[in-house]
């Protein structure tokens, strides 16, 4: 009955803390840097490109996490930005622009611009309306891409070669992996700075209570729009890299299923956690890679797994650690049930 108590009951999303320490970051970077070397020495070069894919989708999921986890904007249309980045690179390549330092920033710019347009309109709405309007925009992009022969229609646009950087060929999987690692690494540093900054703090607070933040003088709409554009731009970067990895882009990247999967990754990992998108993408792709080779009913298992995660760890794997810590701190002190259960509505 008390409006504030409703907020207290929702699954605990992280608030202003929850950023990784420098040592964790360094360890992760080191591990990622030697990963392909290990795979090569094991004679499993296949896993290098899997590694690139994981990194790229981790970036995409983290981009979505910025809007969804930190900003509370549940976008079911982020595939549009992934696709915008991919098509940006592919279209430029079609017209002969293959230099990475031109094509990739241009693709990111295109995605960010798309996010700006979509954001300006969508951010007027709230809740489910926002979910649906972002979905509708992604659908618009999909139909556009499918029906325009210039974009290859249903067949998509192939990329005849990867983007070029002077002095280094990206054609080998290993070189490309390091290129992805470097680019995604930069993006993650940017993301880290974003969520740790005053901007990030204001964003999280807006997620918590928009009306209050407006009343104490935050330009709420502009802050949310900015986050949405940054999120779209970063998703576009992921899309540009993905197109380079798979040597082309197809309208399938734009389907709502793809948006749904990105969201699934974020939630598996933990929305609003810095490592949420990364963990989620890694877990998802590794599961897919291992399970789908053994059964054609992979979707059944994925579905069951997702359901299990929602019911057991509604805020993802990253929240488990906190929940375990919390449980240890308060060892069944109260005979009552947890706050969530008693107010069954």
């Amino acid at each position: 009955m008390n409006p504030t108590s409703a907020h207290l009951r929702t699954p605990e999303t992280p608030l202003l803390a929850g950023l990784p320490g420098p040592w964790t970051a360094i360890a992760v970077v080191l591990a990622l840097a030697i990963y392909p070397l290990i795979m090569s020495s094991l004679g499993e070069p296949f896993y290098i490109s899997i590694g690139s894919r994981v990194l790229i989708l981790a970036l995409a999921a983290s981009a979505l996490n910025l809007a969804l986890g930190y900003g509370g904007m549940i976008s079911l249309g982020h595939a549009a930005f992934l696709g915008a980045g991919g098509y940006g690179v592919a279209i430029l390549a079609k017209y002969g622009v293959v230099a990475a330092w031109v094509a990739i920033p241009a693709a990111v710019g295109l995605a960010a611009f798309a996010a700006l347009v979509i954001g300006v309109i969508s951010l007027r709405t709230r809740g489910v309306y926002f979910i649906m309007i972002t979905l509708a925009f992604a659908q618009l992009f999909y139909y556009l891409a499918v029906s325009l022969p210039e974009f290859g229609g249903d067949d998509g646009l192939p990329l005849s070669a990867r983007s070029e950087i002077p002095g280094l060929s990206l054609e080998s999987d290993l070189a490309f992996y390091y290129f992805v690692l470097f680019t995604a690494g930069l993006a993650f540093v940017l993301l880290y700075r974003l969520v740790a900054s005053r901007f990030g703090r204001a964003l999280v607070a807006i997620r918590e209570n928009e009306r209050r933040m407006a009343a104490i003088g935050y330009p709420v709409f502009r802050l949310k729009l900015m986050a949405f554009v940054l999120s779209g731009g970063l998703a576009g970067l992921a899309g540009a890299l993905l197109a380079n990895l798979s040597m082309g882009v197809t309208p399938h990247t734009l389907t709502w299923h793809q948006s749904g999967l990105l969201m699934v990754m974020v939630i598996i990992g933990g929305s609003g956690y810095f490592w949420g998108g990364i963990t989620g993408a890694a877990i998802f792709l590794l599961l897919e890679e291992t399970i789908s080779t053994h059964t054609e009913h992979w979707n059944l298992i994925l579905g069951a797994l997702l359901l299990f995660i929602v019911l057991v760890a509604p805020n993802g794997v990253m929240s488990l650690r906190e929940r375990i810590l919390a449980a240890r701190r308060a060892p069944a002190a109260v005979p009552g049930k947890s706050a969530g259960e008693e107010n069954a509505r």
Partner: protein
Amino acid sequence: MSHTILQVQELVKRFGGLVATDHCNLEIRTGEIHALIGPNGAGKTTLLAQLCGELAPDSGRILFEGRDITRLPIHKRVSAGIVRSFQITTLLPRLTVRENLALAVQARTGHSFDFLGTVADESDLDEGAEDAARRVGLIDVMEQIVGTLSHGKQRALELGMALACKPRLLLLDEPMAGTDPEESKRMGELIHSLREDHTLILVEHDMDAVFRLADRVSVLVAGAVIASGTPEQIRNDPQVISAYLGDDESAETEAVQ
């Protein structure tokens, strides 16, 4: 005679067929506590919402220190010095008191589009937050999660958030609603103390508080100001008595029957 800080001229706001603010005129003088009273549904909250920019009026003008702010967005009005508190407590319930207040200070000091500085080492925000907490008596509960505070403390924080923005004109919407007699009293003292640095518009149904605190009172009925004056004038205004205050005598007799 002090000069006018806020002027409302012929303000109109409609919700469908309902005229919630009906050619409303109002003048607030610098440094006063101006109480705004009126029956339920008279349009007090709606008027405040227009003053702070949450609602856009259909016509009329709002002048703040002589400047037309009718179309200014909320955050620009906050930086100009108009801040409101809410009738229904509106806080960030999952954050601590310190975090709540620091956010308010951050809004004032700007840089919310500063993407690169980290928050952790910003002692100026902390100082501002502690300042505000001291004024509203929350300095002892700085690290507590707001959602677990008692109603009265939340009301105090509601006010503290507004204060942390360093407003010149403070709009208070029923700050005493739902507070117990003791906390009402404390809130009254707090409001009284604010008077030194701020101009206040106070919407309140607790008449004891209104007549004790206010320098001037305006009475809003059906969206228009029907009377404006000192507490004494208002208390005895027959129009106000019949529309709002009620006739003490009749009530007494009814209850005793």
